[in-house]
């Protein structure tokens, strides 16, 4: 089946869910799940086929569909896949399926939740596959609105504030992109929005210098680029679990992907001009995000800020403009997508939904109460630290090598964060899962007086949670131990990127 069916299946699924009676909650859940699985299957089979093709020494785009859409503008309905976006398409599929599984316990307005969720998923598929700037922009903006409702209706801490902040940041980012897109369109002659066609039209250097930052920063806002990242922690914390997973796991990648596909491809001269500044901003994000995560008191905020830090690696990798660094960046997008989903699932679904608190001081001793959550967090956390054997290691080491080739100072700066990351993950691990006896004196929401194991009396981990966690952990390990399943296609296509150093 053609890769674009992932988009249509998700849209159809959203429509189907809308038509179901609102009280048939299980039917709605299963419909959503089957939709997600079907879309993932389409993506995954295509991915494996493409991988085989790569293994035989090929590289390049696979056209999916290319029809005239608005000929008056020169905009085509053009979708295509290659080694750069296929890992992200697959990532979206996995986060969708696991997100639905982790949302199994939502009881309120189930129908609307899954309708919004699947619409968001469909739009994200669209962004990743679009090869027409106008089409990409349409999908990109379409992805903004469902997030608002998902967070504002089903979220937690300061949900309306977090939702509005996120949406306005995204919209302002896309406004910058909009201006850049128009400028690029006219600077290239005003005949086509097709990214591949546009990239063949050289745009005058003095225009590139000011248009590039518009588009890069516009997309960068969504990628959590420092100093435009402040929506990310508040948004992630306010969101319900599935939305946090999707936000950190996939939506932030939309931004980074846009930076790569639109800004860097179309404005090589502008990129060259701003490259060093971007690289240093990325290093600041990496260290700053990690340092701030270290001092958080709210478990979810730790993961939120760690996302800023890890997305910094993506931007840094892109800025290196060499095959190693950029491949690392793309792999990091995938890897962080999985890690962040897993960690948000532990925090939001497994812990918060049961204990109704995320304060580190009030948690503690959950290792015995929720052993599965403990092991999941251990694996996710270790992957987040970048330990060998997990995908994060392969990704970050390549980014660091790439950055080293650009400047050893960049690599050194970024490497500092690895130690900090280890510190905040271990600290959280200690406070949440161990450290029981020290904390029982406080009045933690009525649990305080009880001592020892009986302090937590929590419902067990459910089957959907186990399945979803196992899927995500398996991905981390598979890509960690056998990176070439993803890295080969990334490298082959990054090498085709114009202006990339070997």
């Amino acid at each position, binding site marked *: 089946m053609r890769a674009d069916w992932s988009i249509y299946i998700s849209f159809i699924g959203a429509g189907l869910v809308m038509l179901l009676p609102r009280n048939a909650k299980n039917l709605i859940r299963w419909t959503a799940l089957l939709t997600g699985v079907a879309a993932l299957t389409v993506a995954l089979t295509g991915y494996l086929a493409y991988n085989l093709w790569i293994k035989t020494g090929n590289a390049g785009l696979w056209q999916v569909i290319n029809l005239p859409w608005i000929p*008056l503008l020169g905009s085509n309905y053009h979708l295509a896949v290659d080694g750069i976006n296929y890992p992200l398409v697959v990532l979206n599929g996995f986060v969708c399926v696991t997100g639905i599984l982790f949302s199994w316990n939502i009881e309120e307005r189930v129908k609307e939740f899954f309708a919004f969720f699947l619409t968001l998923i469909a739009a994200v598929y669209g962004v990743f596959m679009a090869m027409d700037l106008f089409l990409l922009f349409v999908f990109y*903006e*379409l992805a903004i609105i469902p997030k608002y409702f998902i967070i504002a209706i089903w979220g937690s801490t300061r949900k309306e504030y977090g939702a509005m902040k996120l*949406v*306005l940041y995204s*919209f302002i980012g896309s406004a910058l992109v909009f*201006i850049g897109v128009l400028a690029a369109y006219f600077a290239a002659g005003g005949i086509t929005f097709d990214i591949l066609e546009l990239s063949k039209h050289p745009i005058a250097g003095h225009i590139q210098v000011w248009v590039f930052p518009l588009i890069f920063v516009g997309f960068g806002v969504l990628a959590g680029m420092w100093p435009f990242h402040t929506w990310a922690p508040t948004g992630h914390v306010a969101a319900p679990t599935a939305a946090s997973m999707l936000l950190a796991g996939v939506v932030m990648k939309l931004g980074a992907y846009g930076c790569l596909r639109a800004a860097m491809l179309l404005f090589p001269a502008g990129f060259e001009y701003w490259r060093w500044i971007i690289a240093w901003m990325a290093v600041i994000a990496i260290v700053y995000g990690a340092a701030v995560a270290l001092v958080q008191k709210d478990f979810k905020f730790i993961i939120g800020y760690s996302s800023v830090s890890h997305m910094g690696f993506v931007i840094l990798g892109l800025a290196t403009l060499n095959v190693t660094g950029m491949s690392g960046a793309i792999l990091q997008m995938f890897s962080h997508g999985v890690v962040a989903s897993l960690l948000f699932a532990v925090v939001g679904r497994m812990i918060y939904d049961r204990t109704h608190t995320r304060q580190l001081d009030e948690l503690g001793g959950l290792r015995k109460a929720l052993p599965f959550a403990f092991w999941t967090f251990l694996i996710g956390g270790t992957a987040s630290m970048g330990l060998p054997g997990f995908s994060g290691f392969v990704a970050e080491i390549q980014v660091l090598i790439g950055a080293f080739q650009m400047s050893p100072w960049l690599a050194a700066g970024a490497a500092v964060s690895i130690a900090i990351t280890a510190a905040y993950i271990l600290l959280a691990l200690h406070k949440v899962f161990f450290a029981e006896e020290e904390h029982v004196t406080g009045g933690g929401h009525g649990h305080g007086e009880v001592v020892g194991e009986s302090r937590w009396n929590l419902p067990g981990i459910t089957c959907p949670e186990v399945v979803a966690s196992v899927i995500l952990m398996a991905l981390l390990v598979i890509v960690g131990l056998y990176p070439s399943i993803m890295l080969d296609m990334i490298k082959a296509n990054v090498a085709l990127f114009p202006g990339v150093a070997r």
Partner: protein
Amino acid sequence: MNYLTLFRALAPEVMLLLAAFVALTFDLLLQHSHELQQRMRIAGVFAIVGLLGAIVLLVQQAPVTLLGGTLVVNQLTVIFKIVVVALTVLTVIISIEYPVGRHVGEYFATVLFGAIGMMLLVSAEELITVFVALELTSLSLYILTAFHKGALRSQEAAVKYFMFGAISSAFLLFGMSYLYGVTGSTNLREIAVAIQAAGSTPLLVVALLFILVGFGFKVAVVPFHLWAPDAYEGAPTPVTAFIATGSKVASFFVLTKFVMLSFAGMPGSAFWKHLTPGWTMLLALMAVASMVLGNLAAIVQYNVKRMLAYSSIAHAGYIFVGLLAASVTGATSVFFYVIVYALTNLGAFGVVTALSERVGGDDLEHFDGMAKRAPFLSLLMLIFILSLAGVPPLGGFFGKFYLFMAAVERDSVNFGLLWLVIIGIAMSAVSLYYYLILLKHMYVHKARNEERLKTPAYLNLTLAAVAIAVIYLGLNPQPLLALLKNFVAQL
């Protein structure tokens, strides 16, 4: 020139006139024997039949120029007359359930008179006819605004609307008289030729200034917008819808005609770093003021109709950006946007009409928890509001995109008009805030009373059709766009 040609060319307008009289007469006859609700339905059906008949006549019309270019019928005017008639049909449909008092026949007749004015406005290419058509439209709307006989705010709104409108008409007439004095003609095309030949004189600038002020009032741009929030809030909601859509479509159509025919050769520039006094600069300033003020003022409103009034001021600002591009693309984008905007707004006001009557008010908090109480209409409102905010894949998004594109295209080498686009886009981001506030009330807030609201099926279906049109124009704008662009050449 014989009367038969004249009659044929104006047959759709005559049709509406007949429908208006039939509605009046029948209502007079049924006044004592029927319930108010039944009379509303009967008169409404007469009006709708007349309007549909007008559409049938419009579709068959052949291009013709009447009375030496006073009235013109061509494909473009036919399209716009169909739009006006369609908007009137929708207005009538959302009026049927609305309590407009006991003067039922008068209400529907006045709506039809307004529609006739708008249709003539679309056809007119001569100053006096433009003025007469504009007055017919405006007077009908003043009367309609006051139709809430019992409500003080309806009366206040009507008086305010009338005062402002009368002054703006005076400005317009004054400007037109100067224009005639300078060029020696009242025909728009002859005026254009005369301006080309004579070049700009101070008197001409004064004339254009006054005409712009006059139209500025009619389409409610800053600083001539003050009547709009009160009139929108005070008028019966279906009338608000009519003011915000039908009259805007017709006014913008004729304004675009003025710009394209008469102003285009005039001096003045709105290009960044090359700002020179003239009509484009004036339009640019009005556009900026409308976009900024309209959007910022909308944020603090607690009444939905008032909020939509400020939002419509902002939208007039966006449209001005396309207008001052004064190119074929610019005119096309204005036409496309006006059509989409009118459909969207009519839909939004339609939902407000249907719901506010049932919950007893049109403040934001009356809409709390609507998603649960009226899920279908709430979904439609979601579509309309997001289209107003310019979110893809809805018509409003593409319309706005194309407007701004037209502005950039005007000077695509130095990006002279990009500054306007930047302000417009920044203000769109602001507008998303208050649109989301409304949607938040509908979707996020809990209702104090969770009782389901029943709305008549015909209303739901009509509004759903409007929503589908809005979505369709966003997904596939090419056909309408190509059509309009093709016909703009006929201007």
